[in-house]
C-alpha cells in the first residue's frame, strides 16, 4: 500500500486467541509487519458470565503466551460480577504474572458499581483498562456497555487509562461522548472496514488517542490485512498513521 509510512512495525492492541498454539497467528502478523500484539484473552469462550475457574483458565492461557513469546503483552480478563474479593485477587494474581492491564467485556455494564472495584484496583496497580463498547442497534449482549455508559468511569478515574474497544462500533456518537476525557483512547476495531470514522476520530480527538486494534479472534474472526488497511488507507497524515499503528501503544505501555 502506497501510504509512505516507511518501514515501521506495527503494534496490535486488540488480539484474541482461542488456542495457545498460535504459530500461524504470529507468522501471519509478522508477514504484515505486526511485530507486537496485546492479548486480551478468549473472553467469550464461556459465555457472557464466566465463573471464577473459567476466568482463571482464560488468564492462565494469556499468562502462558506472554511468558513464551516476548512480542506479546497480556491483559487480564475479569468478570466484575464474581465479587470484590475474587476480582481483586485475580487482578493481583495477573499483575504478578506480568499482565499490563485489564479487559472488561459484557459481563457487567460499566455503570454497575461492581466495575468501580476493577477501576480502583487498576489505579492502585498502574494498569490500563480496555473496555468493550458499541452502539448496537440490534440490542445488547449481556451487560454490554455503550460509550455513554463509560462516561461515569472516565469522570471518576481520570488517572486510569481507559481504552474503548471498537471505534467503528462506537461511531461518531461514541467519539463525542468520550471526547472530553483525555485519558480515554479508542482502538480502531469493530464492524466492517467503514470509511470516514477514523478520519473523524483523528479530527475530533487527535491522533494520540487512537490505537490500532484488529480484534482478530484466532483462528476465526477478523483479518489482520483488512484491519491494517483501514488505518493505512485512511485520509489522514503519515505521522498520524505512525502514532496509531505503533507510537501510541508503545507510549501507553511505556515500551520502546
Amino acid at each position: 500500500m502506497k501510504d509512505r509510512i516507511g518501514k515501521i512495525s506495527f503494534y496490535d492492541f486488540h488480539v484474541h486467541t482461542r488456542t495457545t498454539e498460535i504459530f500461524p497467528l504470529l507468522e501471519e502478523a509478522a508477514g504484515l509487519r505486526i511485530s507486537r500484539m496485546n492479548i486480551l484473552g478468549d473472553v467469550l469462550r464461556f459465555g457472557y458470565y464466566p465463573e471464577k475457574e473459567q476466568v482463571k483458565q482464560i488468564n492462565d492461557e494469556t499468562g502462558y503466551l506472554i511468558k513464551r513469546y516476548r512480542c506479546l503483552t497480556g491483559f487480564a480478563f475479569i468478570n466484575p460480577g464474581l465479587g470484590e474479593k475474587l476480582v481483586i485477587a485475580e487482578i493481583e494474581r495477573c499483575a504478578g504474572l506480568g499482565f499490563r492491564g485489564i479487559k472488561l467485556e459484557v459481563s457487567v455494564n460499566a455503570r454497575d458499581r461492581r466495575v468501580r472495584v476493577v477501576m480502583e484496583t487498576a489505579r492502585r496497580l498502574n494498569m490500563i483498562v480496555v473496555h468493550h463498547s458499541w452502539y448496537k442497534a440490534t440490542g445488547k449482549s449481556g451487560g454490554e456497555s455503550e460509550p455513554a455508559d463509560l462516561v461515569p468511569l472516565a469522570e471518576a478515574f481520570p488517572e486510569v487509562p481507559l481504552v474503548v474497544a471498537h471505534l467503528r462500533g462506537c461511531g461518531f456518537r461514541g467519539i463525542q461522548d468520550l471526547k472530553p476525557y483525555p485519558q480515554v483512547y479508542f482502538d480502531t476495531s469493530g464492524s466492517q472496514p467503514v470509511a470516514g470514522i477514523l478520519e473523524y476520530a483523528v479530527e475530533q480527538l487527535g491522533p494520540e488517542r487512537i490505537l490500532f486494534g484488529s480484534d482478530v479472534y484466532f483462528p476465526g474472526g477478523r483479518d489482520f490485512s483488512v484491519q491494517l488497511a483501514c488505518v493505512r488507507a485512511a485520509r489522514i497524515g503519515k505521522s498520524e498513521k505512525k502514532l496509531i499503528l505503533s507510537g501510541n501503544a508503545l507510549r501507553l505501555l511505556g515500551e520502546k
Partner: protein
Amino acid sequence: MIVDLNVHWGHWPRGFWPWKTLGGLVKALKGCGITRALISSPESILYPDPVETDRILLTRIKPFPFLTPVATLNPAVLNFQKQIAGKDFVAFRLVPAFWDCSLKEKTVRKLLTLIQERKRLLLIQMRLEDERSQFYPLQVPAPKITDLLALAKNFPSVKMVVLNVYFDEAVQLARQPNVWVDLSFLERFQTLKSLLTVLPVEKVVFGSHAPFLYPEAALAKVMCARIPERVKGAILFRNSQRWLSIG
C-alpha cells in the same frame, strides 16, 4: 487489471465518506489498481422512482469512462421494464431489504423474467451497513437467504452476484450454480484462505462497496493472501470480466 462490481456514488443520509467528490473516489479506486468499476446510485434505493436518480447517476459519471453504470430496480415501481429494455445499463441491481414488496411477489417474477430474456447481469445487494451499526430508528433487516435461493432456483439462467454477504451466507448462496458472491463483507482470519476451503474460486468476485468501505480493505484480502497469482487474477477480474459483455 481489477474489476470492482460494487461501487456507489450519490447522496446517502448516513454516509460520512472521506471522498468528497466522485473524482476523489475515482482517484482512490485507480490508486488501488481498479481498472473498471460498476457503479450504482445510493439515492435510487430510497427515491420513489429510481429511474430519475439513475438518470442523475449517468450525468455524474459521464467524465469517467472507467465507471460502468448499474441501474437500481424496484419491482414495486413498474417502469423497470423500460429500464431493462434500454441500452444505458449493462447490469441491474436489486436491494430487496428496502422494497415495499416481498421477493415472492408476482412483480418480482416479472422483473426476473425480463432480466432472463435480455440476458443481463443481476446484482443483489444484501445490505448497505452492518446491522449492528444501523441508525436505531432506521433498522433494515437483510432479505432471507431462503427467499434468495428460491429466486435463484426459479431463474437458473439469470446470473446473480450477491453483494455484501457475510461468510456463512456466502457459503449457502454460492452453492447455487447461478449465484456468485463479492468480497466486500467477507472477513475471517486469512479471509481468502478460509473462504476457498469452502467455496470454489470461480464463485468469488471482487467488490469493494466503496465509498461505504475502504476499497483498500477489499483489495488487501486478495493481495495479502498466500494463494497462487492465477487464483488472485480469477477473483480480481477473470470471474467477472466475462459477464461484462453481456447484453
